[in-house]
């Protein structure tokens, strides 16, 4: 059944252009990533490796340990919450809750850390509450526990959303059969939901693992000490005090190897990205016991995710808002952040569109394996620290003599690459579904190129593409990333302004800025998820 790709292009089939475009984008991204790592390595080797490999092994081991534990915990919490949300398909606020579940992932780590500390810290609201009821016990979240709480906060809502998305693929007939066959809650979970969980969980867990393995600020602030040193911390160290680019790139290669192993053990054919179906109606009436358990579990999950968000808002409410809002710097930083976020999100969305089209074409032409590989390659971008991309490109641009002339472009590119895997994840299912139904019809009608995009693809795909764009923009907005490397007083983003304030005793103003940044990313993700779920099919 496999159609040779060369054949598609030689025969000038209309989809040949899409195939070429997809490969071109993939090649460009590959070149950008490889050149960054290569340049860092070569430049570092030229200067001599000073650090050697000492400390890489313990760092790698701790990376594995904390990421594995975080992933396990995320899954353990996400599955019951997802099952409960599945069991209660209609209650007031369910949609809003799920939309809010998309927010944590896009928040800057420092905001989350401060939010969690406001809540669970030694002097946090939780401790205050305990004092009120006469208990003098103080939570200690500095150490592995804090890292795990933060990672579960980031990833549990993501896992829940992905699981619910997988549940939507279950055909309506199976739900009807479940009723007809008198399945109780156990039968439904065991025979309908569990097979779906088993199939989609490896992919979800893999994604969560990668996100946890790449975390930095959380590990350092909540880690409690140098015992919590991950590869990412070692990379940052190599790029800061030690300034040992060769070591940094070696560590990055180690991190990528880890990423590769994780992606390789994800079972074949069950990629991170699933082909969607229409969401099906449910027919069961949950019994009183089931409803109670579900409500408790949803309440617990919602409190766990929402309270830190509220804490972030709380921590920012008492800032001097008149002063912040009237400052030119705030306006400039907001405009700059939005401009960078807009550009990188556009780049991420178009690249993801090209790659999703490529993956669809590969799998429909009998190259399922290659299609999976393309998906995994894109996901492996999560294993490359943005700062290393920045240093690598810097070294390359230095050859032109004016490395800073292109600084805004570099910042945009780095943010786009970081957001790409998520953009792809958001749009993949819709693109697969749309192309599967409309591709042959378009070919038959001779619709192609721009005309086809404007008349057919955009009207159908605009909700998914807009959703991906907004989420990518939110991710980019919250990212401090390479701005610090290229920074000058002329490029100030909201995250860098937050750090500027924190670095000058102005933590009150910083809290206010974190609040605005959170509201902004939150608004983008909320509109984005709404858009992505309003598919016209």
């Amino acid at each position, binding site marked *: 059944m496999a159609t040779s790709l060369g054949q598609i292009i030689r025969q000038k089939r209309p989809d040949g252009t899409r195939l070429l475009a997809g490969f071109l984008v993939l090649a460009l991204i590959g070149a950008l990533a490889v050149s960054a790592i290569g340049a860092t390595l070569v430049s570092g080797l030229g200067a001599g490796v000073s650090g050697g490999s000492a400390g890489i092994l313990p760092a790698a081991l701790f990376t594995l340990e904390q990421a594995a534990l975080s992933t396990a915990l995320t899954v353990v919490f996400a599955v019951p919450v997802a099952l409960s949300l599945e069991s209660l398909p209609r209650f007031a606020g369910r949609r809003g809750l799920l939309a809010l579940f998309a927010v944590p992932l896009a928040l800057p780590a420092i905001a989350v850390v401060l939010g969690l500390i406001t809540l669970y810290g030694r002097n946090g609201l939780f401790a205050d509450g305990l004092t009120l009821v006469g208990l003098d016990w103080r939570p200690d979240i500095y150490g592995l526990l804090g890292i795990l709480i933060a990672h579960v906060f980031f990833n549990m809502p993501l896992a829940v959303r992905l699981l619910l998305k997988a549940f939507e693929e279950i055909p309506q007939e199976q739900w009807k059969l479940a009723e007809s066959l008198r399945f109780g809650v156990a039968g439904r979970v065991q025979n309908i939901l569990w097979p779906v969980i088993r199939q989609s969980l490896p992919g979800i867990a893999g994604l969560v693992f990668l996100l946890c393995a790449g975390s930095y600020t959380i590990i350092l602030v909540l880690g409690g000490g140098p015992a919590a040193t991950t590869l990412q911390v070692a990379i940052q160290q190599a790029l800061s005090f030690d300034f040992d680019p060769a070591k940094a790139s070696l560590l990055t290669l180690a991190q990528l190897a880890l990423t590769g192993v994780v992606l390789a053990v994800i079972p074949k054919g069950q990629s991170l990205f699933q082909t969607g179906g229409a969401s099906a109606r449910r027919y069961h009436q949950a019994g009183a016991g089931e409803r109670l358990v579900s409500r408790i579990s949803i309440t617990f999950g919602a409190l766990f995710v929402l309270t830190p968000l509220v804490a972030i808002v709380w921590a920012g409410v008492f800032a001097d808002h008149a002063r912040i809002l009237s400052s030119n710097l705030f306006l400039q930083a907001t405009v700059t952040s939005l401009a960078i976020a807009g550009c990188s999100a556009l780049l991420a969305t178009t690249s993801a569109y090209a790659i999703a089209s490529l993956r669809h074409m590969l799998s429909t032409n009998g190259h399922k394996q290659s299609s999976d590989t393309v998906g995994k390659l894109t996901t492996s971008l999560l294993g490359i620290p943005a700062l290393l991309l920045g240093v690598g490109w810097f070294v390359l641009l230095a050859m032109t003599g004016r490395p800073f002339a292109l600084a805004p472009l570099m910042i945009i590119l780095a943010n786009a690459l970081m957001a790409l895997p998520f953009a792809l994840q958001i749009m993949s299912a819709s693109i697969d579904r749309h192309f599967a139904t409309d591709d042959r019809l378009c070919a038959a009608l001779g619709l192609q190129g721009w005309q086809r995009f404007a008349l057919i693809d955009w009207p159908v795909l605009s909700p998914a593409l807009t959703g991906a764009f907004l989420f990518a923009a939110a991710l980019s907005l919250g990212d401090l990333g390479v701005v610090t490397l290229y920074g000058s007083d002329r490029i100030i983003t909201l995250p860098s302004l937050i*750090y500027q304030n924190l670095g000058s005793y102005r*933590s009150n103003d910083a809290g206010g800025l974190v609040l605005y940044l959170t509201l902004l990313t939150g608004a983008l993700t909320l509109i984005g998820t709404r858009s992505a779920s309003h598919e016209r099919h």
Partner: protein
Amino acid sequence: MRSRNWRSRLLLSAIAFFSSFASFAQAETLTIYTYESFTAEWGPGPKVKAAFEKDCACTLDFVAVTDGVALLNRLKLEGKDSKADVVLGLDTNLTEDAKATGLFARHGMDLSVINVPGGFTDDTFVPYDFAHFAVVYDSEKVKTPPKSMAELVAASADQKIVIEDPRTSTPGLGLVLWMKSIYGDKAGEEWAKLAPKILTVTPGWSEAYSLFTKGEAEMVLSYTTSPAYHMIAENSSRYQAATFEEGHYLQIEVAAKTLEGRDNPLSDKFLAFMVSPAFQDIIPENNWMFPAGKTSAPLNPVFDKMVKPSKTFLYSAAEVAANRKAWIDEWQQALGK
């Protein structure tokens, strides 16, 4: 009127962003690389710029990165292509590394106006401000602050301190050097004793100080000048620095001209301006450090209330460069268990 103002500001911001790197080569421009909190709206940068430009009919151009360490890395990355005429914001722990890059030129200045504890001589780097590292505590929670490092190390673990990571931050390294100055070969053991009192180790000063002011820890590693900020800007004497009998470790911030900047007459002019009262007046209440040179008027009396160390510790830049790795390893060993 209000909305027009808002719109024009928006437009200006947009132009500023898109033209960020459009023009570099203007005549009569001095380019200074420094760190962000120096150029912040509320930092000394804008005032320094205004004061310098008033006399020279030239343009002073700041390029700012996160901190002193990033500043040095940026120079290493750029090498000979660097556009910097002057680099401002390295500290004495970094000067040896900085010299090794071969990018800096000698200042040839008379530094007799400079007055830093323990004195300072260097043919390349010129000090502009200083402060000692100190343990800052919350006086509402700590009734009897430690009077020495020994007391801090021996204290019960009820009261916590936040410190910075020496692998990624200057104050973190400062504390490692401080402990080394006091305890020498026994530093590792003392670190191990201090460990239970350490709440957490943050990547930089900003995170540590935030945790402290959020009330997460009773103490934080900061500077002797930190209380001055709270007293002057917030009118609060809640946060105080503890005087340690053994003495305090010193941080001196320095600037230097680059080889590139040697050809720009404005470089020398700036370094001379930097040690003059016009610049030094700006430092205390904008950079929250002690001025290294003379000011035109006495400092705000608040600065007199700051800790006055009986003894100042400072390793030479060469010693730091030679031992940094080993000492940080020792720290990591002691705390890593």
